[in-house]
C-alpha cells in the first residue's frame, strides 16, 4: 500500500464577492479581490485526508497551478492535512489563458512523475464552471474516471464511486489508478485551524515550471470579450387579454 493521492486545488474569487468586469472588457477584476480555495477542491482535499486517516493511502500531495499567490491555497490544503505541495508556476498571459486542457496536461504529467494511484479533483471551479479538468486528465492518462462523486470507497486495488447523476445515483467500480471528481455531498471539509496553519508553514512546497514537465501551455481558445449579464428589464402588467395580445404583437412576438 504505497498509494499516493494527488489533489488539485484552485485559487478562485471568493463566492460571496460581487464580480466586476474590467473596464476594457478583457476579463474580471482580480487585483485585491478576496480569493479562497474553490469549494469543490476543499471537498476533494478533505476526502484525500480522510483516506489517509483511515490508513488506506500513504501520502496526499496538493497541487495548484498559478502565480505566487497559489501557494496560499496550497498552504490551506497542507493545514487541512495534505503532506506536501507542488506549485506549478504559471503567471501573466499564460495564467490568463490557463484552462482545463492545460491543467489536465500538467496533472497528467505530474501523476506519472509522482507515481500516483488516485487523482481527486473538485468537480468544477466556481469561476469558469467548466467541469472538464477531471475528465480530460483521465482521458490523457487513459485512466478510468468517477465524476460527481458523493461517496468513495477503496476496495483493494479498486475504488467504488457513487456518482450523482440526473436520474439519481450511479455506482461504478474503477480499477486504480483512477481519477475522481468531488461533488457537494461527498463530505464536509474540516476547518484549517491555526495550529495546523503554523505547522503547514514547515511542510514542503516544491515549485516547478510547466516546461520542466514537458507541457505546452498554448491555448487554442481566445477570449474576445467579457461583459456583465444584461440588466434585468422590468416586467409589464396588463389588465386584459386583449391588451396582452396587442402588446405581444407590438413586440413582434406574434
Amino acid at each position, binding site marked *: 500500500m504505497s498509494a499516493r493521492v494527488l489533489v488539485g486545488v484552485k485559487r478562485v474569487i*471568493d463566492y*460571496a464577492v*460581487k464580480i466586476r468586469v474590467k473596464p476594457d472588457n478583457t476579463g474580471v477584476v482580480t487585483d*485585491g479581490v*478576496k480569493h479562497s480555495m474553490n469549494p469543490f477542491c476543499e471537498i476533494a482535499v478533505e476526502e484525500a485526508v480522510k483516506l489517509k486517516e483511515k490508513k488506506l493511502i500513504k501520502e496526499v500531495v496538493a497541487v495548484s497551478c498559478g502565480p505566487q499567490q497559489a501557494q496560499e491555497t496550497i498552504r490551506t490544503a497542507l493545514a487541512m492535512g495534505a503532506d506536501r505541495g507542488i506549485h506549478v508556476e504559471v503567471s501573466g498571459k499564460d495564467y490568463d489563458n490557463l484552462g482545463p486542457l492545460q491543467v489536465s496536461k500538467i496533472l497528467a504529467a505530474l501523476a506519472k512523475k509522482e507515481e500516483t494511484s488516485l487523482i481527486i479533483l473538485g468537480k468544477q471551479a466556481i469561476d469558469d464552471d467548466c467541469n472538464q479538468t477531471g475528465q480530460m486528465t483521465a482521458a490523457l492518462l487513459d485512466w478510468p474516471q468517477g465524476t460527481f462523486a458523493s461517496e468513495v470507497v477503496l476496495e483493494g486495488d479498486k475504488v467504488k464511486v457513487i456518482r450523482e447523476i440526473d436520474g439519481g445515483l450511479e455506482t461504478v467500480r474503477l480499477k486504480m489508478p483512477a481519477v475522481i471528481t468531488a461533488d457537494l455531498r461527498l463530505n464536509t471539509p*474540516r476547518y484549517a485551524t*491555526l495550529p495546523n496553519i503554523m505547522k503547514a508553514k514547515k511542510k514542503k512546497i516544491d515549485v516547478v515550471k510547466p516546461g520542466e514537465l514537458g507541457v505546452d501551455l498554448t491555448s487554442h481558445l481566445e477570449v474576445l470579450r467579457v461583459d456583465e449579464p444584461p440588466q434585468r428589464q422590468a416586467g409589464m402588467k396588463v389588465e386584459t387579454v386583449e391588451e396582452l395580445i396587442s402588446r405581444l404583437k407590438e413586440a413582434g412576438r406574434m
Partner: protein
Amino acid sequence: MPSYLCASRWSSTTAPAPRITTHYSVCPRDKDARWEGVTMERFADEADVVIVGGGPAGLSAAIRLKQLANQHDKELRVCVVEKASQIGAHILSGACLEPSALIELIPDWKERGAPLNTPVTEDKFGILTKKYRIPVPILPGLPMNNHGNYIVRLGHLVRWLGEQAEELGVELYPGYAASEVLFHEDGSVKGIATNDVGISKDGSPKDVFERGMELHAKVTVFGEGCHGHLAKQLYKRFKLRENCEPQTYAIGLKELWLIDEKNWRPGRVEHTVGWPLDRNTYGGSFLYHLDEKEPLVALGLVVGLDYQNPYLSPFREFQRWKHHPSVASTLKGGSRISYGARALNEGGFQSVPKLTFPGGVLIGCSPGFMNVPKIKGTHTAMKSGMLAAECIFQTITDENFESRTAGIHVPKYEESLKNSWVWKELYSVRNIRPSFHSYFGLYGGMIYTGIFYWILRGKEPWTLKHIGEDSNQLKPAKDCTPIEYPKPDGKLSFDLLSSVALSGTNHEHDQPPHLTLMDDSVPVAKNLAVYDGPEQHFCPAGVYEYVPLESGDGMRLQINAQNCVHCKTCDIKDPSQNINWVVPEGGGGPAYNGM
C-alpha cells in the same frame, strides 16, 4: 460575561420571547448537556508579543518591534491575529492620510511602493442646503486643511503594511479572530485565544468542531479598531475608564464609484456639512477623487451617533445626500463598485482611557486617537502602535527589569504617548466636537472652531465636556417624527440589500449569531416599544429586522447575522445596551478591496 442559564432569561409576563441568542458567551457550555464529553482543551503556543488586529496601529507596532529587534540583534517572536480573511479586508476609511507617522516608521516608503498615489491638490469645504452649496474658504491653520496629505485607499495601504511586516519576519495570521482574553493567576493578561470553529446555529457542536488556539505572550497589544469587543471587556476588568469621559462615536458609510472622466479631478478633496442632517445632528460628507488608473472617487457620510431621533437612518441619509445637485453632477453616468460602513470614535482627548494594564496595552482607534475636526485617525493610530512597540521592546529586553506580574506591565507607553505629538494634537482640538452641543448646533460649532481653534489653536484654558453615552441620547419614538426618506432611484441611490451585497460580506451561516443579546426579550419589550426599534434603522447592513410572529400577534426580532459588516454601531447605539457584538468565526465579515 454574566452567565445565566438560558431558561431563566425568558420574560415572565407574556409568552416567552422566541430564542434568539445561542452564543456560548451568553449560554455557557459547561451547563449545556450537548457539550458533555467534548474535549475543550486548547493547543497553546508562546510568542514574545501578540498583537490583536492587523490594521494600521497593529501592523505599525509589529513592524516597529521587528525593526528594533533586528537593530539590536535580538530574537523576537511577534504574532498578529486578524479576523478578516486577508489583511486589509475589514479596513474602511475615507481616507486622507497625513504621512507623518508613515515617514517616521518607514522613511523609504516611496521606494518600497507604498500606495500613496494621490497627493491632495485641491481642498474644498461647503455647507449644503437642500438645493444649494455655500462654499466656505479653508484658511491655512484650520484643522481640515490638507496640504501635504494623500488620498489613500486605506485597505491597500494596510495590505502593503502587512507585506512590509512579513518581510521583517512578523507572523501574520489573517482569518483567525481573537475571541477571548486569557489571564494569569495573578490577574495579568496572559494572551488570547482564537475563536472555536464548528459550532452550529443552535449552539451545539458540529462534527467539524475544533477549539481555538491559545497564544501566550509577555505583552498582548490590543488594536481592534473602534469599539473593540475584547477592549470592552478589558475596560471593565481593569477599570480603565474610571478617569475619562465615555467614548463618543459616529458611523461612517462609504462607497467607491467609477465616474465619467469629464467629472474626474484627481487630488480633489471635498467636505460638506449641513443638508441632509439638521443642525443638531453632527455629521458631514466627504468626496475624494483618487488618482489611480481609473476615474475613481471615494465618497461617504459620517453621522454622529449621539443623534436623538430613533427614526434616523444613517444609510438613507447617505443615499439621499448623493442626490444633492453638487454631488449628483459628479456621480452622473458613473457606477458604484463598493459599499461599506464602520463606526469611528469622536471622543478625542476627553475620552482616552488608561492605556496599559498588567500584560497588555491598547493602541489605535480602540482607545481612540482620532483628530475629529481633521477627520484623521490613521496617523495617530500608527504612532500609538509605534510608541507601544518601542516601550514594550525596551521593557522586555531590559535584563534588569523584574516584573511584579506574570504578564508584563508597560506604563512607560502611556507616559510616552502623553509626551508625543499625538497628545498635543488631540489636546489642541479637544473642544471642537463638544462645541456642537449648544443650542446653535452645527453653526455654534463652526463659530467656535473659527474663533478658538483658528486663533487660539486650542490654548483656551477650559475643556468642554461631552454629553454622555451615545446610547443614552435617543428620545422615545412618540416624541419624534418619522423621517420621510425618498425611494432609491437605482442610479444614484440604492436599497440596503444591494448595497450590502457590494461589501462582499459573508459568514458561515451555520454558527450562533455573533450579535448576542444579554436578554432576548428586551428588543421587543423596550427597543421596539419605546424607540420603534432603532437598530432596524441604524444598522447599515440590514442585520436587524422586526417581523411579525409566525402565530399570534406581536413582533419578534430577526437577526440576519450573515449580513453583518462588523461596523459595531449596534453595540454602541443600542439604547438598552443589550446587544453585545462578539467575534464570529474568523474569516467572516466584509471583503473590502481598498476601502
